[in-house]
């Protein structure tokens, strides 16, 4: 593992938390995998069979450079190259908020994977709220962009995300909310800066 990846892994508190939910030796798809740091973290610790998906040339090159399997494609176009339930876990780490077709991506995650794991910055974090009240778009460690150069399109709060899951009949099996590496259990939508979920498709009620 390169020093660059180790450094990033140390900075990404969510990696170790995600790893706790993943069975050793399982098959993992990481959507929007960036330079492959999460997959190389999981491969080294849990011996997973991992594949990343990314559309960006430099990310694809970085993954290949790090010996991480990567498939170059645009997530927005769906996951047509992947069979249903062909992965144990489909991960979307800090990418959901940058997707155009949020619902489509969540649906595809749970078509291809038996379980989904997702992380996103909590827009409802109190520091974000204060910046808004002071009249500015929030900028923080987890949302490190100015309004005019952000790739983020669909920022949401923890409560917003859970409402969408309810609407899409997605069953949340686990949730961890953290702030600066510490788990937040009291008033997470206010005090947590990063949310990590594990979820699966609940059976739709049969209607006549």
């Amino acid at each position, binding site marked *: 593992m390169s020093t660059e990846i180790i450094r990033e892994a140390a900075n990404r508190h969510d990696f170790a938390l995600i790893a706790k939910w993943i069975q050793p030796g399982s*098959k993992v798809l990481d959507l929007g995998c960036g330079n492959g740091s999460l997959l190389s973290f999981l491969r080294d610790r849990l011996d997973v*069979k991992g*594949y990343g998906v990314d559309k960006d*040339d430099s990310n*694809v*090159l970085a*993954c*290949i*450079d790090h*010996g*991480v*399997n*990567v*498939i*170059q*494609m645009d997530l927005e176009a769906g996951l047509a*190259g*992947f*069979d249903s339930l*062909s992965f144990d876990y489909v991960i979307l780490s800090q990418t959901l908020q940058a997707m155009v077709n949020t619902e489509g991506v969540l649906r595809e995650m749970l078509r291809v994977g038996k379980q989904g794991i997702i992380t996103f910055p909590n827009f409802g974090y109190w520091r974000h709220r204060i910046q808004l009240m002071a009249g500015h778009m929030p900028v923080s460690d987890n949302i490190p962009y100015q309004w005019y150069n952000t790739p983020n399109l669909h920022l949401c709060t923890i409560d917003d995300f859970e409402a969408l899951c309810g609407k899409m009949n997605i069953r949340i099996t686990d949730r961890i909310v953290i702030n600066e590496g510490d788990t937040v259990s009291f008033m997470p939508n206010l005090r947590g800066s990063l949310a990590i979920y594990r979820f699966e498709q609940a059976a739709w009620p049969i209607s006549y």
Partner: protein
Amino acid sequence: MQDSSFIGIVAPHTAHFPQALTLKSGEVLPEFDIVYETYGTLNSTKSNAVLICHALSGNHHAAGKHHENDKHPGWWDNLIGPGKPLDTNKFFVIALNNLGGCHGSTGPASINAATGKPWGSKFPMVTVEDWVSSQAMLLDQLGIQQLAAVVGGSLGGMQAMQWTLDYPDRVRHALVIASAPNLTAQNLAFNEVARQAIMTDPEFYNGDYYEYQAIPNRGLRIARMLGHITYLSDDAMGAKFGRKLRDGSLKYNFEVEFEMESYLRYQGDKFATAFDANSYLRMTKALDYFDPAFPHHGDLSLALAKAKADFLVVSFTSDWRFSPARSREIVKALLDNELSVSYAEVTAAHGHDAFLMPDPHYHQILRAYLANIDTGASA
């Protein structure tokens, strides 16, 4: 001054195989020669060998020059050499001319010992599978049990794939570039037009033109012109030639008027003097026949179940002859088999020919992948 990444002066070798080779068609080649070149040094554990498989009109001369004053180096010299993406300081690279070719390996122009005459029309059909068998025999003769990698573009990529199916324990990595799991109907059609151009040339003599001191180069020329159109993208042609006129004005006759015509005629003429029509016919047939999924009722995932190698699959956005969608079919089948695979879809304007061009991002991808291949501590 010579570039330090240039491989330098190289010389071809010829391997003779006195044993008969039964081909996929059932026909038998009683004996054969394979001409090949090598670049770099085989390490003590013989774990750093890389096989280059050529495409339709390629040959064994992939890198370096035969003579100091050669105008051009080998056909993939931009990839192969010391410090280049396929680094000859690390790898021992083998490039060969396939059976049925016209650059020294046994082909239609070779003398058939049984008759004392050129094989001509009697030369059997050769397939990708036959090439891979003969390549494995060459490796046996070189004492190489296992390839670190097999690399090929287009028809060469098909051979790389076939290697992983026929000799899954003899290849650790396969680099399948601008290739496809089989030809589309449109591609079959292009090949048929090319063959008809050759076979209807009055100088073809049913394939036995050697005996008549004839060369069907008009047909071969047209076949190559057609091929060239399909290897380039409309955009690349437009950018390079557009509607530019050769002499600045229209002449209202059938001489060369547009630059595009001039280029095609030049490419056709150049090729027709350097390539054998019978070889071209057989190379296009080998392309047509390749279809590993066919015996599995079209199920490519089932066909690739035998493979054990790690794969790098690369396609080019403007390649309409071997389109990215075809490469994604290969990737999907590899994923279904849970093999290690990476797939890069390179944005490039040059169409199918892009796989031979030194596009920086494309070469970085190959460099990064090849650099991670383990050739053992002694490499």
